[in-house]
């Protein structure tokens, strides 16, 4: 399941009966690509949400007859974008970080 941010609501009155009355949200993913997802939770623009895609999205709507391939699963309580949490290096060997060269000295040399 992916993590996206709700950008806004999509109004689409002329739609197939398979989408029934679901509210549609516009989501922005990590790379900034916009997608449309059905919203059984009721989100507001700016919320960070996780989504279920594919056939799991149809089951996430609670009724598998809704023809969606992306559904909002829930609102994340706390999320900072693009912060790679430092995992405890318990099992994985910490890769040695290359020391950042001192930019001033490098140019001077």
């Amino acid at each position, binding site marked *: *399941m*992916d*993590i996206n941010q709700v950008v806004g609501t999509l109004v689409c009155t002329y739609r197939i009966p398979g989408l029934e009355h679901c509210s549609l949200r516009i989501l922005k993913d*990590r790379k900034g690509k916009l997608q449309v997802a059905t919203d*059984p*939770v009721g989100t507001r623009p700016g919320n960070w949400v*996780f989504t*279920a*895609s*594919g*056939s*799991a*999205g149809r*089951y*996430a709507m*609670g009724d*598998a007859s809704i023809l969606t391939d992306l*559904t909002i*699963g*829930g*609102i*994340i*309580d*706390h999320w900072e974008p693009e912060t*790679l*949490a430092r*995992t*405890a*290096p*318990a*099992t*994985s*060997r910490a*890769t040695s970080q290359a020391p950042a060269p001192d930019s001033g000295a490098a140019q001077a040399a």
Partner: protein
Amino acid sequence: MKICQVIKPLVSTNRIPGFEHKHLQVVLDGSAQLVAVDAVGAKPGDWVICVGSSAAREAAGSKEYPSDLTIVGIIDDWDPTVPT
């Protein structure tokens, strides 16, 4: 199936009832941060195997479980730098 590293649990109180009470974990697949249902009880820092598509639903509970990525195993020993 993918090899991912568990980063931290994902807390989402306002979520659809379909997820029941299963734990959700933020996992790292290369550089992409994904969310997976935790069926085995992994802890942050573990290297795990994640399964997708319809198998993810079955692994997470029932055929109607709305998951498209589920952690199905914890790798005993994995060195990400060494290409096996």
